[in-house]
């Protein structure tokens, strides 16, 4: 709210109050994350001691231990990266022609399309998980990266088409008509005229679909057992019948948080924009 600037005492108090509220919520948001970072340097005895230890001799052993607790940890990271990247590539490759075709040849309008996509989005993940599990089982594709990629594509493609459709609509059709007059084929127009205009939009769409795949827990939980496990699924390895390795779990959590924090530092602006164009422009 744009308050006219006043220098009265009331305004100063209001400002102090606002800062107090912001700081309180920031503490609430940050505390769990900070506590997990601190615990990642504790032994398991220190992790749950009462009262909690603020001062302790830090240990670094939890970090290398992650590689023991999670067998083939580097492969697990590779799975997460490959599944997110390949799935995103497939979605973009399918969404561009689909959105272009819908926009130029079947102009049903963003509202109608949005409604269709929304109803697809209402379909619970688990309701896709059952048929996909059986399909992958009969195709002998369980525990392969392919199966998780296919599940992610099935879930995210409608959303991808919807986002790309919105960006295609912003490319003026006159531009394409001019290219056609100059003797450019339909395909040539799409590749040389429309596609370059779409690139920023495709970037935003790709980032969002990659993030959805990176966060996905249920599909890899159902579809993988050993070779194709992704990062979210292996967190369960730290909890065994013999007790829980909290220090290890915290070290693992920190290791997954760092790449995301760096990535979002780079794409933060796209992220917010993508969320908004995807979520709000009806």
């Amino acid at each position: 709210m744009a308050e006219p600037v006043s220098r009265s005492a009331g305004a100063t108090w209001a400002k102090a109050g606002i800062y107090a509220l912001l700081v309180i919520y920031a503490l609430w948001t940050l505390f769990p994350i900070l506590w997990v970072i601190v615990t990642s340097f504790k032994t398991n005895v220190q992790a749950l001691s009462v009262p909690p230890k603020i001062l302790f001799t830090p240990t670094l052993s939890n970090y290398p231990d992650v590689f023991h607790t999670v067998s083939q940890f580097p492969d697990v990271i590779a799975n997460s990266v490959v599944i997110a990247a390949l799935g995103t590539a497939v979605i973009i490759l399918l969404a561009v022609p689909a959105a272009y075709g819908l926009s130029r040849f079947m102009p049903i309008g963003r509202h109608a399309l949005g409604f269709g996509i929304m109803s697809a989005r209402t379909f619970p993940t688990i309701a896709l998980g059952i048929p996909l599990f059986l399909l992958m089982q009969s195709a002998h594709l369980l525990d392969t990266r392919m199966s998780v990629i296919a599940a992610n594509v099935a879930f995210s493609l409608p959303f991808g088409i919807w986002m790309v459709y919105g960006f295609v609509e912003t490319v003026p059709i006159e531009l394409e008509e001019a290219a056609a007059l100059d003797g450019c084929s339909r395909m040539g127009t799409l590749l040389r005229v429309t596609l370059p205009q779409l690139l920023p939009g495709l970037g935003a769409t790709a980032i969002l679909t990659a993030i959805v795949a990176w966060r996905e827990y249920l599909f890899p939980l159902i579809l993988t057992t050993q070779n194709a496990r992704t990062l979210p699924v292996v967190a369960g390895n730290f909890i065994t019948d013999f007790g829980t390795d909290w220090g290890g779990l915290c070290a693992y959590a920190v290791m997954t948080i760092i790449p995301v924090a760096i990535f979002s530092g780079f794409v933060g602006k796209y992220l917010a924009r993508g969320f908004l164009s995807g979520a709000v422009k009806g």
Partner: protein
Amino acid sequence: MLGGVLLYPIGYNIWLSLHSYNLSELYLGEHFVWLHNYLDELRDPYFWSALRNSAIITGSCLALELPIGMGLALLLHRRLRGHSVFRFLFFLPLLLVPAVTAYMWRFLFQYTGVFNYLLQQLHLGRVNWSTTQAGIISVIIVTVWENVPFALIVFLAGLQSIDPELEAAAHVDGADGLQRFRHIVLPLMRPFVLIVVAIRTMDLLRLFDEGYILTGGGPGRTTETLSQLVYTETFTFFDVGHGAAISILEALIVVLATAFVFVTLRTRRGGWRSP
């Protein structure tokens, strides 16, 4: 093409829901059983308990996420010095992987964990987070912590789309802060509220990760959500027919709830406003 990737699994799922099919009794084969699986579920106390849990979680999370998100958006929108630092901090939970977040909180919620320690320092006493009631509350706390930033992002964008002169005019006319919020800001924010409520209702009704990791449905199966119930039926009892039937019921519930949200919250003159 859309038909291939999405409609085929959905159709197959509906087909499964009409059959008796158990992966641990494959020798029995698959028979068409009309709507028997659905009728069984409507008589199953576990279904009603899961539906109640999902409804409680959805209602409570919406009731907390919306006002907190709106409050923080209003505070940040004043663009006081340092607001971008706070915005970055507030967005952090949304960037974490939900499953990892849930495991993090499972650690904080241990009986001798830090959350109970803080409660004790406030003279509220330790809570045993593995009871039915406390288990559901823990799922609500974590889900709200994680998703307030989503409401915040959308509401911030909404506030930025409001013409500041409208408010300035009301200010000149003598409207106080609360009146301006009630009569100018809130009506203009309606489409943004609608989007947040619609998307969060869908996501909350099908909540799985947080419940599965934090409580595992326990004690017993008293804190299972709808998605967890489907998972238990299908992948613990291998009863694909019943699992599929519940998942279709769950999808219907989500569609009805979303339709209800759209009908009750749609802007009075109809139609959407782009930001």
